[in-house]
C-alpha cells in the first residue's frame, strides 16, 4: 500500500528556534494536510493545502506556522519561534480527493525544551 513518509521521526528543539517538518505525500494525491496531537489529547486539524495554496486553516495555525510545497514531492510545515506548548506529534496526511480516505504518515514527535 502507498505510504506518506515524514521526517524526522523525532525532533528536539530549543524554545525560540525554528523547525521544519517534512513530508512526502503519496505521489498522485492532490490534497495535503497537517494535523497535530498533543500528548493524551485528540488529533487536531492545522491546515489543508490544495492547488498550491492553503484551502483552510484552523485557529491554531497562526502566523507562527507556514506550509510549503517546494517541489513536486515534498510538503513542509515550518514553525517559527517554537514555544513549549508546540510540543506534540505532528501528522502529515494526503488524499486523492477531498472527501476520500486520508493517508497519514507516522508522525514527527516535536519536543520543545
Amino acid at each position: 500500500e502507498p505510504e506518506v513518509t515524514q521526517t524526522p521521526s523525532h525532533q528536539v528543539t530549543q524554545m525560540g528556534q525554528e523547525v521544519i517538518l517534512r513530508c512526502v505525500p503519496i505521489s498522485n494525491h492532490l490534497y495535503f494536510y497537517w494535523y497535530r496531537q498533543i500528548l493524551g489529547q485528540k488529533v487536531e486539524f492545522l491546515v489543508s493545502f490544495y492547488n498550491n495554496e492553503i484551502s483552510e486553516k484552523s485557529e491554531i495555525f497562526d502566523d507562527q506556522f507556514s506550509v510549503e510545497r517546494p517541489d513536486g514531492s515534498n510538503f513542509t510545515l515550518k514553525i517559527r519561534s517554537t514555544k513549549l506548548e508546540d510540543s506534540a506529534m505532528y501528522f502529515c496526511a494526503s488524499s486523492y480527493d477531498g472527501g476520500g480516505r486520508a493517508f497519514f504518515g507516522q508522525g514527527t514527535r516535536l519536543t520543545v525544551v
Partner: protein
Amino acid sequence: SQQGEEDPQALSIQEGENATMNCSYKTSINNLQWYRQNSGRGLVHLILIRSNEREKHSGRLRVTLDTSKKSSSLLITASRAADTASYFCATDGLSGGSNYKLTFGKGTLLTVNP
C-alpha cells in the same frame, strides 16, 4: 462545536470477545472514517463509510452509520491482544464550506487482555 466524540473513553475486554465503540457527531457529514493508533504511533486507517451508506464490513470490523442519529459504531469481532490500541472516529464535514478536513474525537482506548 464538538464532532466525533467516542464512547466509551476506555474499554477493557478479554481476547475472543467483541468490542463495540460508538461515535457521535453534531453537523452533517460527507463521510466518517475510523482510525487506529497504537501508543505514540501513527494513525492507521481502518474503514471509511459514506453518508449514504448504513453498514460496511472489512475483515473482523463492522461499521454502522446512522445519519438520523448522527452516530456511528465500530465493532471488532473475536478480538485479539494485538487489537489493543486507541480508536478514533473522524468526520469529514459539510459545514463551514469545507469538505476537506477531518475532525477527530478523543478516542476509545481498547485493551484486549490475553
